[in-house]
């Protein structure tokens, strides 16, 4: 039985709940929702440098994040 370990997980439990509540209160879920709301340009800019030139006839993103 190690007391310090139990104090640590108890602290993290309390902190975890507090942080989740604070994060939701500060609308952090909305921040995450922003980026997948059909932001074609952002994703395109993100992906194009890896994938190569953007000048190609079949350059089209699928749109699962529009759903």
């Amino acid at each position, binding site marked *: *039985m*190690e007391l310090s*370990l*139990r104090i*640590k*997980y*108890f602290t*993290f*439990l309390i*902190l*975890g*709940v*507090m*942080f*989740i*509540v*604070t*994060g*939701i209160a*500060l609308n*952090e*879920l909305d*921040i*995450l*929702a922003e*980026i*997948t709301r059909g932001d074609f340009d*952002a*994703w395109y*800019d*993100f*992906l*194009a*440098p*890896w*994938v*190569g*030139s953007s000048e*190609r006839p*079949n*350059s*089209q*993103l*699928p749109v*699962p*994040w529009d*759903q």
Partner: protein
Amino acid sequence: MATKSNPENNPLKEWLSTLPNKRIRTLRLVSQLTFFFLFNGVIFGLSRIQFPIPVVLPPGAPYATAWGGFSALQYILAVGQFPFLVLGVFFLTGAIFGKLTCGWACPVGFWQDLLSWLPISKIKVSRPTNRDLQDFSGFFLWGSIIVAGFFGIQRFNGQLTGGDFWTFMPFDAIIDPAGTMFVTYFYALLWGVFDTDSLLDTVGNLFLWKTFILAIFTYISIKVPRAYCRWFCPTGALLGYVSSNSILTIKRDPTKCVDGCDACEKACPTGVPITDESTDGIANNLCILCGNCVDACPDAMSFGFRF
């Protein structure tokens, strides 16, 4: 009576290590497969939930149903807010379940488990090296936090609007092998990059760099099981700050343990020095609660709670 004996001549040890008991491994495989399909469930018509979870799941993956926690952390920081929500999720799940999500759900952990099954000789890593190499994951974790935080402060002060994608998720954009596998290659195929006559003319440098990084991590993870998890993954590093003190843990019953045996340690994919751990429960941030050690020695090892 258990006596100290030469491990090479220990019949019990040999018997333990050849036990055909893989019940937990089988359950875990089912869990990993299920989560893989759940995490990519948009392809089956599931909807996306904008919530961070403590596994690697690049938000750019075309059919991802949630946000990988560390991607969400970088993004929230980079837009100029302290990532309370993500840290809360990591603290809460880490304190209760430790790194259970690493062992049973993470697609990148699953990928490494598959790699480790390849019949290619493995490298044995010493305990100190295993521990020291973990510094890389801390470097990736804090490096990404500093870069994302730097741009976050600029955006918060209004000195920066918009910006390249790497300023929002530096680790995902430059290193993350999951992003390369599940995002970059997907779009490279979709956009027909591989159909062109001259591949090298059309792909970007970042594409080549990320392919190179992915190849290195793949090779290391073939030679050392779960090498990316052990030493490089910032998601695992963040969870690891909490997971060693988790309520759910793995316990070893010393009264049933045999001197000179190390079958459990041999079965451990992350190299946890199990026999040196407290009998109160494993308190090691390498442990992913996979249960391989319980499969290897069901008599002495068990899942348990540390209340």
